[in-house]
């Protein structure tokens, strides 16, 4: 069975790639993922805030209240060096790139066109095979037009692309008025791949405390529909790799997304729930399914049920929604 796929110009042994998650915070876990069959790893995300604010924060708390009172001119010993989050990231990336055989993709997250972008260069130097750029901007300002937001994405991508020679994939949110056009513009701006979609953290409200509280819940398979549609639509229309992420839990999910046109399928929630070894199970099931259905390669399957390959492309368009609505029955 040939599970080979190509992503960001790299030949991968199969289409399963763990996406950015806390699992890649240490080298042992990354090894376990590789051993379980991961074809590449997207490392956990390095955030703009970490790059920009951590040093400020450290400086603030270490100097807070100092040089004010004669008996306590400082409150902490001075360290010879501070192992900052970005440094830790680079160190781990360096280790991963050296010790793993599979490609390691670094994940860089940010919202503004600031100094943090130059970290892309550091990531490249540390041995990243590619960078996944995650722009997670929430445009809360009513004055900001859609075009301004889109320009920001493109500007950031430009800045990163002009900094590094390695491929850059852009991880997107689904909230674009013209998703396909945005995808095209990103590709025109140099994106080597698109990762669909970013799951925004959705805060919750504690009604007793009247407070906004963080709520983290892991995805399930139903979450992959959004990516499935857009991958199906974009497949073959843009010249860039496509990665599906969000709600990939089983081999069926993998098959679906490959058929929609994904080059790789990325997993996080499933691995957090079941451990890195789940990759091996999914791969085994995938091979079995392909064997049972007489597929010989992933390439064969890729895009076979995409927008342009299906008899009725409108199924990915409005009709789908209409049909769904028509079938809906009142449960109460």
């Amino acid at each position, binding site marked *: 069975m040939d599970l080979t796929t190509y992503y960001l110009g790299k030949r991968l042994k199969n289409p399963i790639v763990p996406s950015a998650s806390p699992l890649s915070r240490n080298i042992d876990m990354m090894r376990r993922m590789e051993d379980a069959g991961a074809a590449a790893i997207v490392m956990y995300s390095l955030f703009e805030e970490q790059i920009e604010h951590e040093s*400020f924060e450290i400086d603030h708390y270490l*100097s807070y209240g100092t040089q004010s009172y004669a008996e306590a001119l400082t409150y*902490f010993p001075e360290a010879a060096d*501070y*192992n900052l989050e970005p440094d830790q990231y680079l160190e781990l990336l360096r280790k991963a790139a050296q010790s793993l055989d599979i490609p390691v993709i670094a994940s860089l997250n940010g919202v503004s066109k600031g100094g943090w972008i130059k970290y892309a260069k550091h990531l490249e130097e540390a041995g990243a095979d590619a960078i996944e750029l995650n722009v997670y901007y929430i445009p809360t300002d009513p004055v900001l037009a859609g075009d301004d937001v889109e320009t920001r994405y493109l500007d950031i991508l430009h800045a990163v692309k002009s900094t590094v020679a390695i491929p850059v994939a852009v991880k997107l949110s689904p909230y674009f008025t013209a998703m396909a056009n945005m995808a095209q513009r990103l590709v025109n701006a140099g994106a080597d791949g698109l990762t669909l979609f970013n799951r925004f953290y959705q805060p919750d409200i504690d009604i007793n405390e009247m407070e906004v509280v963080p709520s983290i819940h892991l995805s399930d398979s139903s979450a992959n529909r959004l990516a499935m549609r857009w991958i199906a639509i974009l497949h073959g229309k843009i010249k860039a790799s496509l990665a599906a992420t969000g709600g990939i839990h089983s081999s069926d999910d993998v098959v679906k997304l490959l058929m929609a046109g994904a080059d790789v399928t990325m997993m996080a929630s499933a691995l957090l729930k079941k451990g890195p070894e789940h990759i091996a199970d999914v791969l085994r099931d995938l091979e079995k399914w392909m064997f049972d259905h007489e597929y010989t390669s992933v390439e064969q399957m890729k895009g076979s049920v995409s927008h342009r390959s299906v008899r009725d492309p409108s199924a990915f368009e409005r009709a789908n929604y209409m049909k769904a609505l028509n079938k809906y029955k009142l449960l109460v």
Partner: protein
Amino acid sequence: MSTSDTKPQESAAQVTIDGNEAAAYVAHKLNEVIAIYPITPSSNMGEWADEWSAQGRKNLWGTVPTVVEMQSEGGAAGAVHGALQAGALATTFTASQGLLLMIPNMFKIAGELTPTVFHIAARTVATHALSIFGDHSDVMSARSTGWAMLASASVQEVMDFACISHSATLQARLPFVHFFDGFRTSHEVMKISQLSDATLRSMIDDTLIFEHRRRALTPDRPVMRGTAQNPDVFFQSRERCNPFYEGCPSIVEATMKKFARLTGRSYELFEYVGAPDADRVIIMMGSGAETVHDTVAYLNAHGEKVGLIKVRLYRPFSMKHLLKAIPPSATTIAVLDRCKEPGASGDPLYMDVVTSYAEAIRTGIAPATSVPAFVGGRYGLSSKEFTPAMVKGVFEELRKKTPKNHFTIGITDDVTHTSLPYDPAFSVEPADVVRAVFYGLGADGTVGANKNSIKIIGEETPYFAQGYFVYDSKKSGSTTTSHLRFGPRQLHAPYLIEKANFVACHQWFFLERFDVLETAMPGSTFLLNSMHGKEQVWEHLPRQIQQQLIEKNMKFYVIDAIKVATEAGMGGRINTIMQTCFFAISGVLPKDEAIAAIKTSIKKTYGKKGEHVVQKNFEAVDKTLANLFEVKIPARVSNAVELPPAVSAQAPEFIRTFTGTIIAGKGDTLPVSAMPEDGTYPVGSAMWEKRNIALEIPVWESELCIQCNKCALVCPHASIRIKVYDGAALANAPQTFKSMEYKGTEYKGMKYTVQVAPEDCTGCGLCVEVCPAKSKKESKIKAINMHPQELLRLPERVNYDFFLNLPEADRRTVRTDTVKGTQFFQPLFEYSGACSGCGETPYVKLATQLFGDRMLVANATGCSSIYGGNLPTTPWTKNGEGRGPAWSNSLFEDNAEFGLGMRLTVDKNTEMAQELLTLFTSELGDSFVREILEADQSDEAGIYEQRVRVADLKKLLKKSATPEAERLLSLADYLVKKSVWIMGGDGWAYDIGFGGLDHVLASGRNVNVLVLDTEVYSNTGGQMSKATPRSAVAKFAASGKPTRKKDLGLIAMSYGDVYVARVAMGANDAQTIRAFLEAEAHNGPSIIIAYAHCIAHGIDMALGMTNQKIAVETGYWPLFRYNPRLEAEGKNPFKLDSKPPSKQLREFTQLETRFRMLEKSHPERAKELALLAQEDVDERWKLYEQYAKGTNGKPTPAAEHAV
């Protein structure tokens, strides 16, 4: 390696450091074992040593010195003694009482002829008051120990003499005290030559180290040392050491000569400077000699003939060398001591000189003819300024036929008239020295920036640089004054700048507090951080400032540094901006060079904390010059606004005349007669010191308030008060005074007010954080919200005055056992100078609300004694009846014993009063006497009634003139219950005072111990104590504390009859209050271990109470009460008051820099220690659960093994 007399190849590096770092540098290079304990101003030496060892820095012989923190200075001395006996090169650092605690060991170390050097930042020994500042009273107290004593007068000398003493001690076999003036030298930053490794190697003879090791105690060549001796031989043994003392001075002399050959810097045992034919000479030691040195040069250049003998080697005192130094022409000699030995025939150095000279005459070494007249004088106690003007005053006195003996200089003694007059205007400052004075806030980074500037100038230019920093006595909102000198020659000016050619004021409001231009010279420059632009600023300046700018013909620049800082994303940190302005205006360096140098220094300071903070600082520098403007000074004064008086005219006389003078920064002008004779001061003075340091203060929204009173409970400064009162009292209420109906049943129909003290609040925001009431319409609005203070100051001042005059609650009717109830009681601890958001003071204040009117407080030295008792004011106060806590601080180590002593007296007085009372049974009636003797004083009503009875008794006794009646009258107040509280921090309770605390807990006496557990020595800057938890970073635990926290509660519980509680107000305030009440009610020893968040934790202080809550939720700080009374009732005395941990420890540790820092500095170790710390939490919880479930709950040995 053998000694070599050749000059080292490498040239000496120039470094800009303070005296403590200079001493630590040499000590760390030349020792193997370093035992330390924090005490101001020497703590930094230990901190340096610990930091360097944690960083793996090696000593001269390639090994990293072992640095161990001990439980006290006594412990440090013991550890060093042991280390020396076992053959190590060992040292310690200390000061003041710390040195006194070392004395017993020092006698032994000297008696055993053991080479070592103790480095001492000489500090005042506490007498009528504690003082952290410098004089020689500590080292003089150690002069009988038999140690050699070498005095450094400057930062350069500290480095040099540290080396010379380490070298000499090995040769002489006498231990050395190497001392220098606390703060003045220990904290003065100076550009000096650093000793190279090669020089140090040349100075230390390794064969002597081998000899020291050969003398060590080892089972391979056993001997014994430390015998007990009898009258037959002790005396002779004691005399056996004489040759070593006789030989020591020439050894030091030779060592100094060798040092001079290596470095070019030569010193003598007694060093004469001045006219060879001087008629008047001063003999002295320490930093003051530098001042005299410069003054002597100046006076001689102006035609006088004066001289100075700097005493370097004070012990062994070499008469021979001293005589050589005294010029034969000298007719009058003043010996100056920086200490006072009351009752002695003279102060120590004076006595040494006079005795020596008399002996020299008698033995014919000195000529019996033309004997100079010797007088002794005192100067500079507790870092009192010692200036060239005072030196001139002394020399003037020496001109007299019979100069005053035993004089003082620098004060006005109008009681015993010891003081000499002097002309304060006299100055020897040369024209080519830049003298800059900067006024800043602790929080704005002024001092840090100035320390940088000194380094820049010291290291980037051939200029010599000096910096000294003055702080006020408050921990929040403190003012700092930086004194910087730069000049082409080595600076010998260890005194504050009195004539500045550059003055910078970094905060506008200082202009309204004190005269910032007082030191400005004619033609000098003034830099002001101003929100008013160059066109507008003039009109806003107070009259005094305008007038001086005109009259002194000054240059005047303004910058809106806050605006620049905000634009550069620096928040309120204006340090680099003001620093850039200084360089731009002062012209010490060419502008471009200066800016490049500032940037290099920013990179050095912030580089390791990340690139981003560096960039932001660069941005601030770049934006500065465009925002710096020169102001054209108009010809006329246009403002009539004067500086307001320091305290209100309504204040009592003592506060106005004495306290107010200190607050105004003029304490130096107070004469001796103004001082209380015995260190006794009135309470209730903090209320007169309106500091107005809060930018924002809380505002009460009565319509949202649920009347829980939590805001008042947590307020660290007693700046939120609550009263419930009759509505009729509102008749004359100010317009904006708020009130609402009381919601509960107990005061139905009455009014309720939450009032903020606008000028006393420090703006910490704890009240807002704990307020549980939120607007139904907008969740961010609470019943207490922060608003800018400036607009609220006047109306709320009026409201607060009105509020204070509302009647206090009737203590008999208030429910004391509820959070709400306690906050209707008047706090008798208010407006302290503690850190904004302090975690300790809410507990102290609560105790005064509950028991303040009958409380005696023994307060261990530490934060609580400083914010409790540091002049000018005290937060301890009294109620309307004139009752309140009686407070005292004895020492750091003896506080439990001190408090027990108070209890013993109270008990004895009560007993005597009761005994006497029974004598009056027939006279007063049996029932009256019995009522008093058998009164139930277990609640407020009972105490109230007893007070009424005692008042009646006193009235009756006054009519009787018998001696018994008089005796009973003097003791009658002790028939009313007294509550003895022993308070202190964890440094006291867990470490230095633990032995005493343990004994007091075992005494069975009715004392209440309150441990304010911040888990570090907060007052001295966050050093590790045994209360420090595993994995936290603290000073002396730079790589994280490897061991678990001591469980003081368990230890106390093991006595069985001790009431023990562990509380955290932010997690469970009701439990805290129950614990306080139960502890006080327990007729025996009780101890409350109270979690106190602290600035030394590196946290957002506004969230202190939230952190406490999470500390409890994670099991980091379980809450319990152990009440022996329950056991008597057949119940389990141990009650676990917190729920099983619901969160991982990490959720707490992530909130605090003390834990997070380890992840940054030692990531691997941080992981290991974090795992162990979680285990500590889990295991302790298991153990506590066993107690809680057990039949009697007592910790058994078996249970303890389970830990």
